[in-house]
């Protein structure tokens, strides 16, 4: 049901709104580290806002402003990177399974992922934490590994109907490349679903990074990282809400902005096909 066309000015205002929501945290994340002054002396934990610390202090007495400025980069890079990596691998994987013309190919592709799914991620994270002292890269890898089966399964399910349709058959007959068939065509068909899923999943990735940090994987537990901040400062929520609220709001703004933009883009796309 395509509603009545929206007034262009309203649409522009709306898109601007979404861009600001997405852009503010991103700019803060990418440029913040240059503005922050992490060497500030510490004061007591969860101190209320003062002229020294405009947003108060966090659970170990650091200035929240600095932490916020410092903490976006890992979130964006590790969380976002992990989600993107999971998609880069998971989507073609799911497409392959959906487009498999023989059931066993499908099974061979999907069942191992089920095994991955059935191993509690807590254990995986704990093990990684126990075995090595992994850096952000390993962490990103683990997070995307945890998300991979879900992405693959959802892509497969979304693509299943289109994968056996006449358009796919026609492409097969015209010798179309694997890439175009499975990724461009099938991927295009399921793009709305995947975009929506991605918009939510990226948030999941951020918090997965945070809980991994909590278990001792990847970033340090007192790291300046928005998701970690939310996690670590929550005991002080009622003492000094800013240490939780500000990073949480930034993450929220980022995901809301991203999702609104996705929605808008998908709407335009639907109008044109």
């Amino acid at each position, binding site marked *: 049901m395509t509603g009545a066309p929206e007034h262009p000015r309203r649409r522009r205002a709306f898109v601007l709104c979404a861009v600001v929501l997405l852009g503010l945290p991103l700019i803060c994340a990418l440029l913040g580290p240059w503005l922050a002054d992490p060497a500030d002396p510490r004061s007591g934990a969860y101190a209320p806002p003062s002229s020294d610390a405009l947003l108060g202090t966090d659970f170990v007495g650091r200035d929240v402003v600095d932490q916020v400025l410092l903490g976006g980069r890992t979130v964006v890079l590790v969380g976002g990177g992990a989600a993107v990596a999971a998609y880069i691998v998971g989507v073609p994987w799911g497409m392959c399974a959906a487009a498999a*013309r023989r059931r066993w190919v499908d099974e061979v592709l999907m069942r191992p992922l089920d095994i991955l799914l059935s191993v509690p991620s807590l254990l995986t994270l704990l093990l990684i934490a126990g075995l090595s002292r992994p850096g952000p890269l390993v962490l990103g890898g683990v997070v995307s590994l945890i998300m991979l089966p879900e992405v693959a399964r959802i892509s497969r399910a979304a693509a299943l109907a289109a994968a056996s349709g*006449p358009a796919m*058959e026609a492409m097969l007959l015209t*010798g*179309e490349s694997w890439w175009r068939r499975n990724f461009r065509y099938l991927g*295009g068909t399921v793009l709305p679903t995947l975009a929506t899923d991605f918009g939510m999943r990226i948030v999941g990735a951020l918090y997965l990074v945070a809980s991994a940090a909590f278990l001792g994987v990847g970033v340090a537990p007192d790291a300046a990282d928005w998701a970690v901040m939310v996690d670590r400062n929550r005991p002080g929520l009622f003492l000094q809400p800013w240490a939780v609220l500000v990073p949480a709001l930034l993450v929220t703004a980022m995901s809301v902005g991203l999702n609104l933009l996705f929605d808008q883009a998908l709407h335009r796309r639907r109008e044109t096909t």
Partner: protein
Amino acid sequence: MTSKLVPVVSVVDLRVGVADRLLVDGLSFDLHRGRVLALVGPSGSGKTTGAAAILGEFPARSVVGGTVTVDGKAVSAREPVPPGPVAYVPQHPAGALAPALRIGPVLREIARRHLPAAELGRRERRVLVRAAVASALRQVGLPDDGSLHRRFPHQLSGGQQQRIVIAHALLARARVVVADEPTTGLDAVLRREVADRIRVLADDGMAVLLLSHDLDVVRRVADDVLVLDRGRQVEYGTAEAVLGRPSAPLTRALVAADCGRAARPAEAVTVRAADAATPRAAADAVAAQATEGPYGGLPDSSSRSVDGLVVSELSAWYGGRRRADALSDVSLRLTRGTSLAVVGRSGSGKTTLARCLVGLHRDQRGSVCLDGQPLTASAADRSRGELARVQYVFQDARASLDPRRSVLDQVARPAVRLRDADPRAAEDRAVRILAAMGVDEAIARRRPRALSGGELRRAALARALAADPDVLVCDEITAGLDPLARDAVLDLLDTQLRVRGLALLVITHERAVAARLADRIAVMDSGRIVDEGPAAELLDRPTHPLTAALLSADLAAAPAP
């Protein structure tokens, strides 16, 4: 009777424009109860666009002018017709059937919805619903024993899907029926039955808008005829007046071309045997030039002298273990430079046969050999060369195209992929092939959604031709094409046959196509070939009753087998 005087639908000066042009330009007509108005015109003339306007549906981002009133209420994109009073039989039935819903429940749902509102117990209602569904199925020539109820739409043949959609419209008990090419994909027998059904509906007091190329059907049922040409209304009057004494040149051409098919005898076959010295040589040269790409020269006849496509003892079935046989022991031979027309009633297994040949149906037994080499049952296992050599034109052209890429792009691709052509050259050639069939480049640059049914069908054929195949399997390529466009298509294929030595298998319900193209004709029934022989013989002196029924020249005369 006031109802006859007050139109149910009234369209005044309807104009629908998209960015660069007007699709419908000044359409005005009335629909009355009990009358059938036929909208005819060449493919792409705006019939579907005009008819959809009655429902308040317009192409995306179109500009609309004029008024449409249904039941006295103005209709627009913002306020479309409330669901109910207007039933619509869409041009592409496959798309209209929800892929995940079984046939039966949907039919029952529609019937239940439109049951007379009397106070009834649940059981009585159920009985009534069942009866209504059975009757609707009977009316469109489908078994009413519930054998189709548990099927999904994709488990029906093209013609069966078409009829299910008509059954939907029958059950909807609307006051207005808009039927967009309701007889495409139906064999001669069914075509007549469906036509008669439409007439009965009108006689029962419904207003019918019939969109059709099939002038036989139009003659048989229409009270009034409106002729469209490139969105403009060129003639509007009673059926006898318009078709009997056509005044506009277009109408005349259409009627003439239509008559031509019945008139043109089977000697087309003999004509083809003669070479380029005939008067048609000039036209052939054009067509040949259009279709010969830079990457394929004239065939080397010595290397291609082997036998072509040989099918022996081919059987196919659906549904794995709980199988239903769709083909039984079919044997065929299709030599280079000749063509075979496969005819048969709807659901007799024609499409299945075609899909077996091109490698889209894996549940098969028997052998398919091309030039002595066996072809695997799955196209996925065929080499690029093999893929290039055997091409297929899908029965449902629209579904076989990617909705998100431009049609031209898709038509050009096979040459790039299968014949290693340069993308630019491939596109040029695609443009030429399409132009030869009457589809402009500007149209082809759009996405499939913005093309008319006939344009899509020609695009699908062009795509297959672009691969430069040795064997071409065409599934109802002319269904939904007006006589003029059809002739263009047939000319092109004819040239390919003669010039390139193409082996052509056409599946068709149209006598004209068989007469024009076929060297031999095979008649299928329930998955078997029941009659086979030279085209002239089967067309002129059919012995098998089914052959006679399917290929009879006159719609009215087609006897039920």
